[in-house]
């Protein structure tokens, strides 16, 4: 089953973030808790972890893209 990884809402006023780096490529295995991509926020760079175990099947944006909070960034095909 495909699971979405979204831009987390790190604070109430946050509306978007810049995806500054991909840490996993399409086809890479992903463990639960492993960082998948980095977003730049006001204060720091945050590595967003996967909530699922499986394979990265889609990168929904490119490095440098601005993505809205809770919008899809990556798709993971979850291991059954």
């Amino acid at each position, binding site marked *: 089953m495909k699971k979405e990884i979204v831009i987390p809402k790190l604070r109430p006023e946050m*509306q978007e973030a810049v995806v500054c780096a991909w840490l996993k490529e399409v086809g890479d295995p992903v463990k639960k808790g492993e960082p998948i991509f980095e977003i730049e926020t006001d204060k*720091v760079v945050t590595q967003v972890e996967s909530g699922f175990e499986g394979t990265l099947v889609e990168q929904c944006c490119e490095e440098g893209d601005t993505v809205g909070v809770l919008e899809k960034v990556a798709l993971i095909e979850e291991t059954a």
Partner: protein
Amino acid sequence: MEKTLEKAEDLQAAPPSLGKKPDWLKVRYNQEATEEVAALMKDLRLNTVCKEANCPNMGECYRKHTATFMILGSVCTRNCRFCNVTCGRPEAVDEEEPMNVAKAAKQLHLKHVVLTCSTRDDLEDGGALQFAKTIRAIRELCPGTTIETLISDMKGRTESLDIVLEAKPEVLNHNVETVKELQKAVRPQAAYERSLGVLRYCKQHSPDIRVKTGFMVGLGETEEQIDRLMDDVLETGCDILTIGQYLQPTREHYPLVRYATPEDFARYKKNALLKGFHHVASAPLARSSYRAWEALEDVHGLY
């Protein structure tokens, strides 16, 4: 100006960048791990400074089931230029808050609780009694748990400080925040001498309480000013020092001047220990309450 009146786009805008953020300012975030603590706080109507200050360490601390409680509401009467906490007209003091903090500490199995507050210049005692009540509630529900209070200057009123000291927290923390020369620009409603006075008074009146302070770098201070700040703080009898990188919350806040390197922080630490501080936490993401129990354990046998 109340921060709540800022335009939404200003809150969104990243502060003027010093270029790419350095590698040492990277943190991890896990939705699931963070939500558990966030849900508990919401259930008990509690605030954390982790959330209100948009702390970069929140992901790590919540995952480890630690948090710093912010009592006396999430709205502050002061508008310090470095701080992300909302300034405005505060709410009434919540009488159930002390026991709710104790309940949360118990549920999270905290062995060390850090309590801080919004600065309440509108209250006669600066919120001291709420601190004392919260300490007593934690003592009642969580025997054996150590307590650290990170207080405002309480306008320097010794009657207020006495109320907190009489409740006997293990650690009394009050931040000087920055060097003498930048006080007016960075925290206009506070004062360097008053903050040093708070530290000195607390140590003199409760010598068995560990006194702690912290400051930020990256606001434009010089190395000589940092050196003098350490001397001034040490002279008050302060035991524990924390030094961390200032991170500009929004473009409306005090401008970030530089990123100090991990080597800079190592040098500050070495210097502070040589001067005579008992424990020093100095790192880019070191914050007042970050891994606070480690500092307490380190100085535990001092007195």
